[in-house]
């Protein structure tokens, strides 16, 4: 079962919820798809790390063969190619690696070369298999890395927890594509409601079963809770704004591995989500 954990902005507690859910399971795979700044590994400190590079294909134009017919420029839907002063130039960060320019070139002047954009680190932390996607600094899109993380282990029957990137853009859509359930993590503020609404709209559009965990809850007003009641969204749980949680989290500790009460809390949360699915 694939459980995706997402939120409309960073810092709501996606990693807190993801890491603890994975650690609470008997055995699980934790997939960190927040490739721009993955941080789940800081908690798991996985061992036996295996590294795998992820590459994309970029066109290379042979200037001796190119007749500047511009067929490639006209073909490129992303406008990654331009023709200036009698030669074709490529804008790497705009290229989507579709390979179309190579196919349409009548002179066979275009070949492709691999460019490494990041890597995946796989390791083990007790009951959890940890996989971390890491996009190199300066690269525009981490989607190829996310696709690769999610593609591996397709036969794996264990619970897979997908720690998504923040927001509701392309990389998040890619991360939840195969999710059986989406957990939306929100903050109990008006700002939190705005961000919750972004991911709520996204999972609704994708028709994904979903529920909300409200993190950092205090006594009194809770606009995020009210939002869920009004929209009839299932509230899976509320995590208090508690100094102990903050302290443990800031030291890279995994709550469920430290204290029985937290362990029970996340086991219940996991059971609730897996039962909803069944």
């Amino acid at each position, binding site marked *: 079962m694939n459980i995706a954990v997402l939120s409309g902005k960073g810092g709501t507690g996606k990693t807190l919820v993801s890491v603890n859910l994975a650690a609470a399971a008997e055995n699980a795979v934790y997939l960190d798809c927040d490739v721009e700044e993955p941080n789940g590994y800081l908690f798991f400190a996985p061992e036996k790390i295996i590294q795998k590079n992820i590459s994309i294909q970029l066109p290379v134009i042979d200037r001796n063969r190119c007749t500047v017919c511009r067929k490639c420029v006209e073909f490129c*839907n*992303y*406008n990654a190619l331009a023709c*200036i*002063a009698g030669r074709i130039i490529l*804008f790497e960060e705009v290229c989507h690696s579709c390979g179309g320019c190579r196919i349409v070139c009548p002179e066979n002047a275009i070949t492709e070369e691999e460019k490494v954009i990041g890597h995946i680190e796989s390791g083990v932390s007790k009951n959890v298999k940890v996989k971390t996607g890491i996009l190199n600094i300066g690269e525009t*899109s981490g989607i190829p890395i996310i696709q690769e993380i999610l593609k591996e282990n397709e036969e794996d029957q264990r619970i897979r927890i997908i720690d998504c990137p923040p927001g509701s853009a392309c990389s998040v859509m890619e991360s939840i594509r195969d999710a059986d359930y989406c957990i939306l993590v929100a903050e109990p503020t008006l700002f939190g409601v705005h961000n919750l609404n972004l991911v709520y709209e996204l999972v609704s559009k994708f028709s994904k079963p979903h529920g909300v965990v409200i993190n950092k809850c205090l006594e009194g007003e809770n606009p995020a809770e009210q939002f869920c009641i009004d929209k009839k969204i299932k509230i899976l749980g509320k995590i208090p704004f508690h100094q102990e949680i903050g302290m443990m989290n800031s030291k890279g500790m995994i709550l469920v591995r430290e204290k029985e009460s937290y362990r029970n809390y996340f086991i219940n949360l996991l059971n609730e989500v897996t039962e909803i699915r069944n």
Partner: protein
Amino acid sequence: MKIAIPIDENKEDTTICMSFGRVPYFMFIDTESGLVEFIKNDAAESQGGAGIKAAQIIVDHQANILLTPRCGENAAEVIQAAGIKVYRTNGNSVKENIAALKEEKLTLLEEFHAGFHGHGNH
């Protein structure tokens, strides 16, 4: 000398548009012949890379000068590689900016913003 300007509407008393890559039209003014041309910007509806395609239109129409309030990095790369000079407009009046250019009152645009790439956030 041929001047290119991103404009809001395809008529002479139009205003200069704030956007470059996704501007609806470009105006090309040939200062020697006085001929004015309006070209629809096909890049406006692009999924991505609008600035690159819009810059290609400017290059293909053999402009020597581009007057624009702002411009993205990728578009600037295309335009500068073609040897086209980019001046920063002052206010949105086409006439006033052409007059200011002739009087050498416009300054070169030297700061180019990073692309929005249609997302804001990837």
